[in-house]
Each structure stands twice: as structure tokens, then as C-alpha cells.
């Protein structure tokens, strides 16, 4: 039986899809030494090609970034100082900031609805996108990079023993002291942390003091 395709088309198929050759091409190869050699060469190259494309990712870790991410530093001593002085409110709450935090949370009502933990890779991506480091000690069930006051900030929902609590790492918002606030149906607190702050928010009536230490100590 004669071949139904010519060498040119056989090589197009071999070069285009060497791992899935049609019956016509197989039939052609069986009778054409040159195309058979071309197929063998292509397949030999194919395994090297796969190895070449599978880049070693350990070289990516020291990847030079075009824009250095802003790191969010919170010293353990600051956390301790905050916890020791727990009930002392040095300044009046910042109504504008608190109101905007609550407004932001209101616009993402679904954030408190999920109980499924966010995969570590997704959480890492959200934090990296905001250029902050934070290692929540409690399960995170919502993580989103949100636009807040002109900056991308991580908006997290952390599961505590009293229920879900929103944590926003505001690396661009400076507060002089911890600000406790009540806005509408929510209450929360904004803590100074590093060169920014951390906002913790829960529905009114839901306490979170017992887990604040865990939430704040997660900040690196």
C-alpha cells in the first residue's frame, strides 16, 4: 500500500506533534528511511527539550526583583509592650481610618462565610503582592490583596476560638498608639506595628482579646 502523505507533510506532523503521530504518518515512516530518521532525531531531542523547559526553581529564590517589596517589620518587643499595656488607650481612635476599615469589610461580606483554609501558596501570594510578611498562627480562611487608601494590603480572615476575625496588615498606615474603635455593628483595634499598623476587626459582641497575641505575634 502506498503512503498517503508526502515527506513534507510527514515532517510537519512529526515536528509539530512528535508524541502523537497519526496512522498516515506512521504508514509513511514505515516506507521512508529519511522521515524515519527525522522522527528518531526529533524524539531524541524531545526528552532534552522537556528537561530544558523544566527549569530548576531553586535559582528563582534569589531572583532580583525590579521593585523591592516593602517589608513590614514588627518587633516582638513591640508586641509585648502592646500586650502589657493592654487597657491603656493613649490616643483617641482615628474615626476616619476605623470607618474606612469597617466600610472595606462591609464590601466583602463573603469573607467571613468560608471555613475552608486558604492554601499556603495563596496566602504567600497575597502577602507577597502587598510586600509584607506575616505568619498567622491561626487558620486563615480568607486572603485577598485589597486596595485600601491607595495601597495593596492583605485582607485576611483568621479563625479564632470565638469565631472569624478580620486582620488587615496596613504597612502604609501609621498610628501613634493602639486605637480601639466601635463602628456600626463592628468593633476593632488598630495597633502600631513597625512602620505601619495592623487592624483587627470583629462583629460587635464577639471578643477576640484572647487571641490577639497569636494574631499579632504572627507579624514578622
Amino acid at each position, binding site marked *: 500500500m502506498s503512503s498517503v502523505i508526502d515527506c513534507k507533510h510527514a515532517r510537519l506532523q512529526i515536528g509539530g506533534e512528535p508524541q502523537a503521530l497519526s496512522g498516515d504518518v506512521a504508514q509513511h515512516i514505515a516506507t521512508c528511511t529519511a522521515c524515519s530518521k527525522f522522527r528518531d532525531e526529533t524524539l531524541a531531542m524531545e526528552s532534552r527539550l522537556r528537561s530544558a*523547559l523544566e527549569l530548576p526553581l531553586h535559582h528563582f529564590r534569589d531572583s532580583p526583583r525590579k521593585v523591592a517589596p516593602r517589608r513590614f517589620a514588627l518587633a516582638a518587643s513591640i508586641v509585648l509592650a502592646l500586650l502589657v499595656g493592654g487597657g491603656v488607650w493613649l490616643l483617641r481612635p482615628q474615626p476616619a481610618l476605623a470607618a474606612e476599615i469597617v466600610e472595606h469589610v462591609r464590601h466583602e461580606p463573603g469573607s467571613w462565610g468560608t471555613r475552608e483554609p486558604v492554601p499556603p501558596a495563596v496566602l504567600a501570594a*497575597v502577602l507577597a503582592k502587598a510586600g509584607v510578611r506575616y505568619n498567622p498562627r491561626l487558620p486563615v480562611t480568607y486572603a485577598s490583596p485589597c486596595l485600601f487608601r491607595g495601597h495593596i494590603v492583605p485582607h485576611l480572615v483568621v479563625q479564632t476560638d470565638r469565631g472569624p476575625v478580620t486582620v488587615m496588615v496596613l504597612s502604609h498606615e501609621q498610628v501613634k498608639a493602639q486605637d480601639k474603635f466601635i463602628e456600626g455593628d463592628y468593633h476593632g483595634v488598630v495597633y502600631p506595628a513597625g512602620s505601619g499598623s495592623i487592624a483587627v476587626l470583629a462583629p460587635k459582641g464577639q471578643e477576640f482579646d484572647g487571641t490577639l497575641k497569636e494574631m499579632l505575634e504572627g507579624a514578622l
Partner: protein
Amino acid sequence: MNPRPRGTTATSAFARLLETLRPDLVRFAFWLARDRAVAEDVVQETLIRAWKSREEIKDPAATRPWLLTIVRREHARLYERKRLPTVDLADVEAQGDPALAGDGDAGLEDLRRAIMKLPDEYREPLVLQVLGGLTTSEIAEQLGLTQPAVLTRLFRARNKLREIYGLAPAEDVE
């Protein structure tokens, strides 16, 4: 000890799949962008979007092509949004990007450099096929091309790479 919500210990299948596929997503993004930092940014955005839209995936087998689609879109969007400068291959060559290192295998490094030099229109379908595991039909759908057009691009990509092995290129097709 605080009670953990249900599902904390048993990570969902989708979450595990994301973790498993992440390395290939980074590689794919790198071959698109030819820049490690941009590739990492693209994959970060991809993972966030994928997690938010995970309800869309009904068939786990469809996850890989779906994620590759998101990577492609995010890559295009990133360049659109930030108006990033295109990568100058001469700079990449001069800097000796460690991402291309063959870890002692000079031939592998040469091949990686040759792939880097392929025109985008040839490199992208090749990476989708070999790394992404997509069929020509799926690639055609991803790239908005006909299957014969994809086949031709794949043929030309491999034909260009043959030279690195001292192999004679095949006659081109129209």
C-alpha cells in the same frame, strides 16, 4: 488550644493541586516573560485568582489548562497595566541568568538559551505542549488559532532548535 475549623488538617484537593502545579506555572510564566521576578508576580496573581474562582472548576483534569490560561492572561495584563519594558535578550545573555543554568550540563543551558531566543509565537505553543501537556487542539483554543496554524508553529519551533544539535532543519512548510 484553639479549636480548628473543619478542613484545616485535611487540605482540600484543590489546594493540594495548586501546590503541585505551582512549579510548572512558575516555569511557564518564566518562558512567557523571560524574567524571573515577573514570572513570580504573574503566578502570585494567578494563584489568588484561581483560589477565588475555584468553584468554576468541576473537573480536576481541567485545572491545569485552566491555570495556564490564567497565567497567560495575567502575564498580558501585567504588561498592559504596568507597561513593563520588554526583556532585552542581550541583557539576559550578558547577565547569564541563573534560571537557565544547566547545573553542569552545558548542552542543557545552550538549549535553554536557544528556547529563549525563539520568537514568542513559536516559544509559547512549544511550552504549552511540552511543559503544559496540552494537545494542539487545546493550544489552538488557548491562542485563538487554528489547529494547522499551531502545528506549523510547533514544527518551526522544533526546526529552529534542531540546529543546536547540528541537525539539518527540515524544509519549511507554507
